[in-house]
């Protein structure tokens, strides 16, 4: 059924720390690696070694430059995968019932054997989190590594999404965002976690932690020594300045 559940027992999702992400793309690679070998159709590539390579990914890292009103520009690396929205528009548009949101944990999944590959769900997602696999003709999206997090065959420390397990900077956190006392919920509360495009009304479960403000004080210790010694040029430079001024 592609109607959305009224509420879900848990709200499993990711919290992504934009302050910590170093833009190494390790999560992109580990996500592709895990998901191409496990649940569902493999994530195909087209022309992988040719002049125009392209492929299916469930997680991609963009980089943005922000210019504040004052001060220097900042570079922010920005990983993006499905946000497992509470009001997921991708689910309700699906004509076949292939797309659904699970009642037990809120994960949004595609039943690949029902999907006709119409692509409408990818149109309905504001975030670009769904990609139609060009070889299989079915819709692929982040599964929140549903085949890892409940997998008793894996050692306990591996029962988290591949991207979370891999991230060398610890910028990706996994947990139940429906439980206000969970680690991820506390992190969101402490760091003022935010929704992407809240105006789209999708109520994403995944949250993003904004970059911390830059330190502005520290530099001041040395700053006085760097003050210009003289504002007005003297001697030869002063003479040159005045002469040129007169011309």
């Amino acid at each position, binding site marked *: 059924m592609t109607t959305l559940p009224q509420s879900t027992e848990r709200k499993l999702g990711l919290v992504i720390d934009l302050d910590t992400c170093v833009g190494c793309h390790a999560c992109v690679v580990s996500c592709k690696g895990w998901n191409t070998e496990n649940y569902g159709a493999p994530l195909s590539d087209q022309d992988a070694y040719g002049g125009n*390579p392209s492929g299916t990914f469930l997680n991609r890292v963009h980089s*943005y*430059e922000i210019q*504040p*009103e004052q001060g220097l520009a900042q570079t922010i690396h920005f990983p993006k995968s499905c946000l497992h929205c509470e009001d997921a528009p991708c689910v309700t548009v699906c004509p076949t019932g292939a797309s659904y949101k699970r009642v037990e944990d809120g994960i949004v999944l595609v039943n690949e054997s029902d999907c006709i590959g119409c692509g409408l769900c990818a149109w309905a997602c504001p*975030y670009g989190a769904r*990609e139609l696999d060009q070889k299989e003709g079915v819709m692929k999206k982040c599964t929140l590594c549903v085949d890892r997090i409940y997998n008793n065959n894996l050692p306990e420390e591996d029962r988290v999404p591949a991207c979370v397990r891999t991230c060398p900077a610890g910028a990706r956190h996994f947990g139940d965002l429906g439980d206000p006392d969970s680690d991820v919920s506390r992190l969101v509360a402490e760091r003022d976690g935010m929704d992407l495009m809240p105006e789209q009304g999708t109520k994403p479960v995944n949250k993003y932690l904004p970059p911390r403000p830059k330190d502005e004080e520290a530099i001041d210790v040395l700053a006085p020594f760097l003050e210009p010694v003289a504002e007005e040029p003297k001697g030869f430079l002063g003479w040159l300045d005045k002469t040129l001024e007169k011309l």
Partner: protein
Amino acid sequence: MHPAPSIIIFTVFSGLGFGLLTYLGFGKPDVSGFTAFVFFLIAYAMAVGGLIASTFHLGHPERALKAFTQWRSSWLSREGVLSVLALVIMGLYAIGVVFFDTRIAWLGILGGTLSLATVVATSMIYGQLKTVPRWNHWSTPILFVLYSLTGGAFFAGQVWLAKPLLLLLGIAQLLAWIFGDSLFRESGSTIETATGLGRIGKVRLFEGPHTGGNYLTREMIHIVGRKHAQKLRVIAIFALTIIPWIVLALLPFSHILAGIAAILHVIGALMARWLFFAQAEHTVGLYYGAR
């Protein structure tokens, strides 16, 4: 959005076909026997042909029957269900009209209404998408219905109706273009809200996630064709409404001229539908520093 030929052909021709079926259902023209057969044949060719064209872009057309199951929530599913209902009921009605010279009025009216409802469902597939602000507007279903009724009036030979409908369609299309141009801005989505980084300052894409394209950029970020959009709009509106109206309203009536006007109208509709897709901007473009 990428203006895929299969979707443009599907939406235009199935719209025309269901428009013609609407007129036939309401008994305009009130024909029977072989003449009726030809009318129904044209209507079915366009409506069914359009539906078949729409399956060309599916990854798994062999599973298309599954698309009839989710009519409670999905407009695409509703479109499928309504179109089959309309085609079946109009088929029964057509059998009466063509072979038995009996017009079962209520059946025709039911079939005609379902035909028009199919067009509304098609329009809502686009109109429901908040991600494409240009489409997410009440003008989308009105336009689709007007397209269908105007083209249908041509094919049904209802010149008295085609004349005012052409004017109405032209005005509606112009207004939709003019007001549509600002809908993305009004939706409030920007690269700042998309990244949540607007609280720090002005955001721009520094580096994309990969050097090549991907499914998303090919499917939803179509900028190439837009530079001639204004010229195409002018040509489209002339072909769609102005010239056909002049031919029908001001020149002495002849079947050949009316035929030319109809062909021009369809060409104009195809161009306008191309623009409908090519000019529609999806919010995902914000992440890629492009709309």
